[in-house]
């Protein structure tokens, strides 16, 4: 990972992409404000910014999804109009979306030619595609079986198919939107190797991400966006993560958490041999056991979809399981007969769910209604047979103030808040209940850096108050900086427990891929 020098590569005069004065607004919201950027061919250019900074809008303009209100696009020195994605492809731009645009039950080959068939009959196209796929795979060391069914491939390989799809369409400029969000660390490393290879072959790559580490590792130049504006474009070698974070947020940000040693108390949560079978009869949890003491954070690391969601749902009371869960030494019902989300709350378990938009909040409810959500049977919120809306509103505005939810207006619907503020709403509701046990899933997913800092502080405060916290996150950095112990989940099992100061990302990455023996 030290190929950051740009020497020895051919750099021609005209930039591969040049945007001049791009502006785009949606109603009163100015998503892009007079943005100019030059990306030289044969480089990897990072675009970093918080959610809503306008990164995606800018790329959508480049790919023909939106039309810019103002501004010009030059591809290889020639002014180019990009009214739709067909034109973008014709101009040599390929896009790899965060959520893959693949047909799951088609083969790799069929996916590659989809939309680029040469005629009504498929056979000649497929034969031609097979040949060029093999030569692309050879050139860029991206081995993929052309006849494999896409849904049977790993996520990392599916992403390769997306890249090959773009290359098959003669893309010279590749845009990747948050490409590592779904990958294990080792898959991400493989992706970066491929991207470097592509760069060395003269392709231009634009990488959109919110992860500072990726920017530092792989890009040659980086642009920072904040509130629709391009605040800086710098050579990666000349900058550092702290400076980039400051440019993104507009103020100094604490990237490291100063953590005192855990003051462990008695055991508050004990999970024994938990097994979960899903609706299709597949075993999702295969005997998970762990415990958490008061004043301790147990981090569960792992790639999404390895049983973490099921674990949270069982603990949260809305999925049934076999095994045993002891809260404060007493077993709680996990058969679903006498338990639901309500009874878990009465046991002092608060839950910040992984997906705040589908579970944690009712997006069309006002903020004050969401503050009561899950606690709507609380006596304080009742007056006779009616809900005491005035009391809920009062409570909501106090909680929103303490958690710095912006704007501090409890009458706005949840969907009108930004991701970070939505998460603060959920945290305010759950943490202010002073629970003994807090379940937190993906606390900072889709949350901007400034809010991440605040959310981490809140979790740490709860730990210092002697509560037990179960933290589930796919962000390894988050797990490593917050947890007192780290358990790694893979395929419904806990592969091992490590202490954060005695392990590293490489070891955890191997565990996340299901490899337990030390590989030298």
């Amino acid at each position: 990972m030290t190929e950051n020098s740009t020497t020895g590569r051919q750099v021609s005069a005209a930039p591969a992409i040049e945007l001049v004065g791009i502006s785009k607004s949606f109603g009163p919201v100015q998503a892009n404000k007079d943005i100019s950027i030059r990306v030289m061919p044969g480089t990897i250019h990072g675009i970093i910014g918080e959610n809503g900074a306008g990164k995606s809008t800018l790329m959508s303009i480049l790919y023909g999804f939106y039309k810019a209100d103002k501004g010009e696009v030059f591809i290889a020195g020639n002014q180019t109009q990009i009214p739709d994605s067909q034109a973008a492809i014709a101009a040599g731009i390929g896009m790899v979306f965060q959520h893959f645009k693949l047909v799951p039950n088609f083969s790799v080959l069929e996916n590659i030619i989809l939309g680029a068939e040469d005629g009504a009959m498929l056979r000649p196209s497929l034969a031609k595609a097979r040949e060029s796929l093999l030569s692309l795979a050879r050139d860029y060391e991206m081995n993929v079986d052309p006849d494999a069914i896409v849904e049977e491939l790993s996520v990392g390989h599916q992403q390769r198919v997306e890249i090959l799809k773009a290359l098959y369409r003669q893309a010279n400029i590749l845009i990747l939107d948050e490409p590592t969000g779904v990958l294990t660390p080792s898959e991400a490393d493989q992706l970066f190797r491929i991207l470097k290879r592509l760069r060395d072959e003269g392709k231009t790559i634009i990488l959109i991400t919110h992860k500072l580490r990726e920017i530092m590792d792989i890009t040659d130049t980086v642009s920072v966006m904040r509130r629709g504006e391009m605040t800086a474009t710098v050579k990666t070698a000349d900058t550092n993560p702290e400076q980039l974070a400051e440019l993104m947020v507009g103020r100094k940000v604490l990237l490291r958490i100063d953590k005192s040693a855990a003051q462990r108390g008695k055991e508050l949560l004990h999970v024994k041999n938990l097994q979960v079978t899903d609706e299709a009869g597949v075993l999702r949890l295969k005997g998970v056991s762990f415990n958490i003491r008061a004043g301790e954070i147990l981090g569960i690391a792992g790639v999404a979809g390895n049983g973490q969601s099921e674990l949270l749902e069982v603990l949260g009371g809305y999925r049934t399981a076999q095994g045993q869960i002891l809260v404060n030494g007493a077993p709680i019902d996990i058969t679903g007969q006498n338990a639901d989300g309500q009874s878990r709350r009465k046991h002092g378990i608060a839950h910040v769910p992984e997906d705040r938009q589908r579970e944690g909040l009712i997006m069309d409810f006002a903020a004050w209604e969401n503050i009561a959500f899950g606690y709507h049977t609380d006596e304080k919120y009742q007056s006779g047979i009616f809900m005491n809306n005035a009391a809920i509103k009062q409570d909501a505005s106090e909680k929103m103030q303490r958690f710095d939810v912006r704007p501090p207006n409890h009458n706005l619907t949840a969907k009108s808040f930004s991701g970070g503020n939505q998460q603060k709403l959920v945290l305010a509701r759950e943490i202010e209940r002073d629970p003994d046990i807090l379940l937190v899933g993906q606390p900072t997913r889709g949350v901007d850096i400034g809010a991440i800092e605040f959310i981490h502080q809140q979790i740490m405060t709860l730990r210092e108050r002697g509560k037990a916290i179960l933290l589930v996150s796919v962000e390894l950095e988050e797990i490593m900086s917050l947890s007192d112990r780290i358990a790694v989940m893979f395929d419904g099992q806990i592969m091992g427990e490590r202490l954060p100061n005695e392990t590293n990302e490489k070891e955890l990455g191997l565990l996340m891929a299901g490899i337990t023996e030390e590989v030298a």
Partner: protein
Amino acid sequence: MEKMPAWADVVLVPLISLLLAAAISALVITGIGEDPVAAVKMMVSGALGSTYGWGYTLYYATNFMFTGLAVSVAFHAKMFNIGGEGQAMIGGLGVALMALFIPWPHWSLALIFCSIGGAVFGALWALIPAILQAKRGSHIVITTIMFNFMAAALLNYLLVSILRPVKSMDPATASFPEPTHLPTLHDILMPLGIEFSKSAPANVSLLLALAAAVFVWVLIWRTRLGYALRAFGHSDTAAQYAGINPVKITILAMLISGGLAGMMAVNTTLGEAERLVLNATEGAGFIGIAVALMGRSHPFGVVLASILFGFLYQGGAELALWTSIPRELIVVIQALVILFTGALDNMVRMPIERLFIALRGSGDRDG
């Protein structure tokens, strides 16, 4: 930030939709060689020009209020109860049994207990689809439609073979006894010195429907059940997270919905016909869907939309009676109103939203 002010959302958008529907209706009327202006005059004078017209308009509106509220309550829990028609038919059976077999001393007692009878029967008719939905996942749209046909068949059998008085040729129950007859608007308004048509069927059930609207408003926005019901309707995954039991909510919402639909029979059966006849519902269960759509499932909107559809019903009947415009055209006009206010809502809404955003944008620049 909200895209446009509330008044535009609840008043302006439906109004423009209605005007569009009226404009196209006018084109259709012109197309069949009639004069649209005369037709509108006829409809307005027929439905609203006399207390007789008002009496019919409000009578129909009463039906639509009950069924519209029924659909609205289910809508809030994200269920599409198409079975209002069947639930109202079976509700009629409950009303008739109460009125026929218990000798009520006064209409007020009859009204209370017949309402309960209608509501219980309607609710029970909705209970089976509700259980099938909650426990087995059978889609409520399919089951409630089927239950409409079953209700019609059941009522047909009962009226022809069991409830029909001996020697009667008519598939209907015997007339209800005199003390159960409800006061009409004529009877109610007389002491207030207002002369209301004696022959119009609007009756005290109108007040019951308005009370039901208030009840639904309180239920949905002021009670814990209403909160849980709306939460479940917006997001069933979130409701599970919060510990809201989906089976319980599905069944309760459908019981309330079916009960409201069943209470419609108080108006038609106890109030107007004073006996249970075949097809007493006359499609009001289906109009309830349109009314709920147009009223945005809000009780106040449902009341207004009910009066509009009452006007269309009564005005349409007058039109068919006095002009050569065929009765079917009324269905066309009603369909256009449903099309524009329900299905094509976004067609009107989105340009208006853009307009408000543009207005606000220029306002911001000035300030």
